């Protein structure tokens, strides 16, 4: 499973309509593995369920989180929060059943559950 060493893959940098490359922030993730599948938790504060895009292409899964536009008005005194959207790409283990992937969003944390396909799990074979 290449999730151990995978960082932001930039071989396909997204561009906006004007052909300038769009900047993204890499969200911090925790990745866990159980015998049933993988769980990825990604921190994307300011992103709601509607601003989230999870796409699968080949064996890559891309998560993009669009921040809800800032409603606070006024003059900034100091600003540390990045204003860019979040993006991260992962290479999936072929054992993952892509039809059963689920995503949940809670308080800015995306929890992605990627179950392994049944056929890959260790099974006992009974001897007749």
């Amino acid at each position, binding site marked *: 499973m290449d999730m151990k060493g995978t960082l932001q893959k930039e071989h396909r940098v997204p561009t906006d309509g004007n052909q300038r490359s769009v900047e993204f922030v890499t969200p911090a993730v*925790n990745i*866990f*593995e159980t*015998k049933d599948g993988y769980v990825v938790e990604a921190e*994307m*504060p*300011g992103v709601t369920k509607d601003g989230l895009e999870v796409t699968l292409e080949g064996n890559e899964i891309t998560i993009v989180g669009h921040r809800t536009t800032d409603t606070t008005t006024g003059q900034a005194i100091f600003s540390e929060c990045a204003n860019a959207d979040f993006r991260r790409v992962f290479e999936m283990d072929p054992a993952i059943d892509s039809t059963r992937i689920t995503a949940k969003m809670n308080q800015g944390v995306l929890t992605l559950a990627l179950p392994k396909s049944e056929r890959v799990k260790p099974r006992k074979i009974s001897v007749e």
Partner: protein
Amino acid sequence: MNSLIRWQHPEFASWRSLGGLSGLRDEIDRLFDVPLRELTRTSQLLSGWNVALDVYEDADNVYVKAEVPGMKKEDINLSLHDGSLSISGERKSETSHEGTETLRTERYYGRFQRTVTLPTPVAVDKVKAQYKDGILTVTLPKAEEAKPKHIDVHVA
């Protein structure tokens, strides 16, 4: 002879330290290429959880926005003292389940604290805080005497 040591010409042996210099040059190059924000992010390992803050003000209020995803509101503490707002809390890690192998941990767990000095005096009893989508927004209405006042000029 107890051990064999590879013979190196005495003059060349000391040159190995030059490798350290080219490493330094690469580091300095990296300093100019990488935006400053990225650098401060990678140093979280040593300094703990640096919660990102934004502070804004308009004519009526001061707003403080903190990015603290994945917390429960009862684990966040806010206090106002002497013109400074202090935000602290603790994020506890979820109990690990049996048979779970952790492949990667980038999220920070534990305590955090940030204190910010407010630009103007605020009405303490009217402060409101909201935690939504992992962002804590604190709205602090300015104290009456701190609001900009219009002064009429009379011509005598």
